[in-house]
């Protein structure tokens, strides 16, 4: 039977010759991840089942949602998770970046199965793996057993062809797709991105595409691994699976990326997508660059190119959180951080930063933030009366300079 990448990875991990959409499979998981916000509940479930993790090198805890702790409640949660890390002697414990970026850099290989207690666990699928977000009970179960049950999802194929025009990036491409497909258009489905645009895209941009699969309801995002993936893996090897040419997809989308303009997603839902021209001139209070969606070196590089030697608008906070320590160091060594700070930006530690509304840039009532993150839900960055507008790093940086939303193509 012809199969998709997702079906092949799940068949391999569940020791079966093949699986079909709708089948149930018990798969071995390569890694189980929880972060500071979700680990405490998962740990509770875990201790109800057993007192020893299935593999101390395959259970990973990342403090990224509120690190260093901004509140006593946060510090208490960290204390609980840290005790678990120490008691279980886990080798994977990190406080230096967003979980999905760290997992991409240090752990995940093609063919792996990752379950993460975070909805954006679909990100790492960009390396040719099956990666998905689950609730705390499931994560506790996976920490205990190294296994997890899945319903094999139907696959959707997004065939992206051509090249984007100047000033248009992977973020604009995925926002445009979400605008077309809708917030529930890929509910429970495997979202496979393919086509020459994807092949030519950097690994960083591929991670951006897969990161937002969940914003159209997808179970996982996935991209076939190639030489670029292997180069990115820096010595890690994996098992490359490719979709058969005659594999069955529930739906196929043909997308010419050259037609895509810079996009924005307006509050309060991610599929409320317009071209940037729809809100050009709208005053902003904050511009945020970072996250598992767009906090990578290429994102910081384009932002730096736009603001270097200039000053951001006086009424705007421009906050930059590199997505990992490696990215932070590279941005430091390339001089980007200095250029950004000289332009008026505030650099935060590698973490989720302002994206989760707990510290490092919360919004008050009536404020508007343009952000490179993936969700614009009411209250996500603080007050439910604040507006969050999603856009590419270039649009974020250009808007920080202008003090209002602008088309980045005029600034490149």
């Amino acid at each position, binding site marked *: 039977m012809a199969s998709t990448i997702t079906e092949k990875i799940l068949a391999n991990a569940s020791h079966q010759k093949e699986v079909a959409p709708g089948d149930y499979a018990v798969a071995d998981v390569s890694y189980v991840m929880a972060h500071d916000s979700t680990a405490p509940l998962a740990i509770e479930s875990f201790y109800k089942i057993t007192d020893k993790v299935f593999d101390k090198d395959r259970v990973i805890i990342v403090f990224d949602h509120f690190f260093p702790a901004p509140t006593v409640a946060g510090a208490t949660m960290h204390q609980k998770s840290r005790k678990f890390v120490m008691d279980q002697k886990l080798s994977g414990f990190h406080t230096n970046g967003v979980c999905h970026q760290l997992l991409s850099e240090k752990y995940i290989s093609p063919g792996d199965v990752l379950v993460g207690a975070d909805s954006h666990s679909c990100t790492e699928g960009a390396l040719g793996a099956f990666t998905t977000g689950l*609730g705390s009970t499931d994560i506790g*179960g996976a920490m205990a*057993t190294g*296994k997890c049950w899945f*319903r094999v999802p139907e696959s959707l194929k997004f065939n992206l062809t051509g090249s984007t025009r100047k000033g248009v990036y992977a973020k604009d491409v995925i926002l445009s797709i979400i605008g077309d497909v809708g917030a529930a258009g890929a509910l*429970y489905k495997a979202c496979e991105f393919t086509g020459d645009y994807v092949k030519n895209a950097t690994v960083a941009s591929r991670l951006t595409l897969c990161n937002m699969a969940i914003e159209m309801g997808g179970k996982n995002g996935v991209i076939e691994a190639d030489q670029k993936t292997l180069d990115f893996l820096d010595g890690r090897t994996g098992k490359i699976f490719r979709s058969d040419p005659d594999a069955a997809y529930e739906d196929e989308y043909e997308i010419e990326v050259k037609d895509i303009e810079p996009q924005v997603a307006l509050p309060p839902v991610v599929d409320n997508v317009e071209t940037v021209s729809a809100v050009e001139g709208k005053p902003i209070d904050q511009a945020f660059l970072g996250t598992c969606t767009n906090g990578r070196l290429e994102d910081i590089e384009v932002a730096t190119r736009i603001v270097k030697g200039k000053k951001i608008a006086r009424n705007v906070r421009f906050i930059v959180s590199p997505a990992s320590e490696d990215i932070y160091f590279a941005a430091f060594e390339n001089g980007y951080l200095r250029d950004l700070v000289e332009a008026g930006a505030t650099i935060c530690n590698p973490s989720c930063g302002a994206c989760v509304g707990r510290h490092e840039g919360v919004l008050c009532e009536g404020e508007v933030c343009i952000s490179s993150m993936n969700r614009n839900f009411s209250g996500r960055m603080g007050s439910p009366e604040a507006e969050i507008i999603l856009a590419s790093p270039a649009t974020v940086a250009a808007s920080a300079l202008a003090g209002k939303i602008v088309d980045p193509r005029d600034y490149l």
Partner: protein
Amino acid sequence: MRAWKFGDDINTDVITPGRYTVTTDRKRLGEIAFIEYRPEFAKEVQEGDVIVAGNNFSPVAIKAAGISAVIAKSFARIFFRNSINIGLPLFVSEDADRIDDGDEVEIDFKTGEIRDKTKGIVLKVKPLPKFMEKIVEKGGLVNFLRSDGYDNV
């Protein structure tokens, strides 16, 4: 077991309206199930009864109320996983609406046969695989992993 029939898009707010749910107490959750949508439900439901619904059925209070299974045309994804993991079996059937409210039904979990004894009809659904049957039997994922585990199924 009696069938309780509901329509499409039965979500958390229909089952457990927000202002009643400031509790995680199972018994109390069972008492407020459908409190506004069908006030008689919590009083009359019997241990083992079944819910039949349309599309996109989503939510835990119903198990606490005594419901033993839900048959619907489709389920919301998170509800599906959570239900199995708390030991509430779900069955997808395009023909769910052939069963009416108050019908006497019997489910054979092993064969996937749903017998509507009132009407004398049998609906065939995809039975749950063995391990999921076990998860349900043990009352949820945590109990299942503590006792059997995937390797012993």
